[in-house]
């Protein structure tokens, strides 16, 4: 997994590349936690999944953990450019409705910043 993050306005954007499996889930969880802790109230997080291959349950758990903590800070978390396989996985786990989904960064940042 290759994980980077940057800020666009009030939105923290995570870029995930490659497979997110095994120990990657814990790294992802810690990165989300750090961003949420450092972020202000109403933290906004966008996860860009373009280039993300496989995800295992640990990676899903990291996303859900981030969702829960963002909710506690009355923030928002969205994802964009998830592959068909990841969309299927989110649907399988009934998590698709948990995350706002966006087609591209401009739309995501505009929505999450509002």
């Amino acid at each position, binding site marked *: 997994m290759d994980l980077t993050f940057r800020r666009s306005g009030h939105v923290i954007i995570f870029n995930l590349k490659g497979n997110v*499996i095994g120990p990657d889930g814990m790294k992802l969880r810690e990165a989300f936690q750090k961003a949420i802790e450092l972020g202000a109230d109403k933290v906004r997080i966008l996860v860009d999944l373009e280039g993300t291959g*496989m*995800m295992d349950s640990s990676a899903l758990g990291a996303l859900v953990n981030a969702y829960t903590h963002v909710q506690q800070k009355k923030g928002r978390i969205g994802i964009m450019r998830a592959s068909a396989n990841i969309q299927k996985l989110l649907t399988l786990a009934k998590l698709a409705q948990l995350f706002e989904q966006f087609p591209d960064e401009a739309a995501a940042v505009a929505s999450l910043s509002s």
Partner: protein
Amino acid sequence: MSDLTTASENPQALRDVILNLPTDVAMMSVVDAVVTHIAQDMGFESDVVEMISVSIIEGCMNAVKHGNKYDTNKRVHVRVEFDSTTLKVVVKDEGVGFNPQAVADPLSGDNLFRDHGRGLLMIRAYMDEVSYNDDGTELTMVKSVPKE
């Protein structure tokens, strides 16, 4: 790695690979590499290979975390059996076992918001057959190449 599935003398013959691994999360990539190679050679589509790979990782991670509870004195035993059409992977831990029926449904109520507990759901969705032995220490996963 040599070609494991196209031995000229009898391509239908059942072959197996046995791995006895330390209880170490990092070692699970070894199992993944072996099974992925075999699955690709068997002709599974690439997205199915990914599903098999995730299932194997989930099964092995469960053995390390929940079965052996990270006890480095215990091992994870993996047996991969395959012929030209069917892949079977058996993952056995040295823990006390568990009752798979007692695992909380990750799709039910507040369980949706838990940050763990989806591994078995994914394995069952991705593999054709999934079963445990009586004491819950041995997971068997089967995937077959679709008939044309």
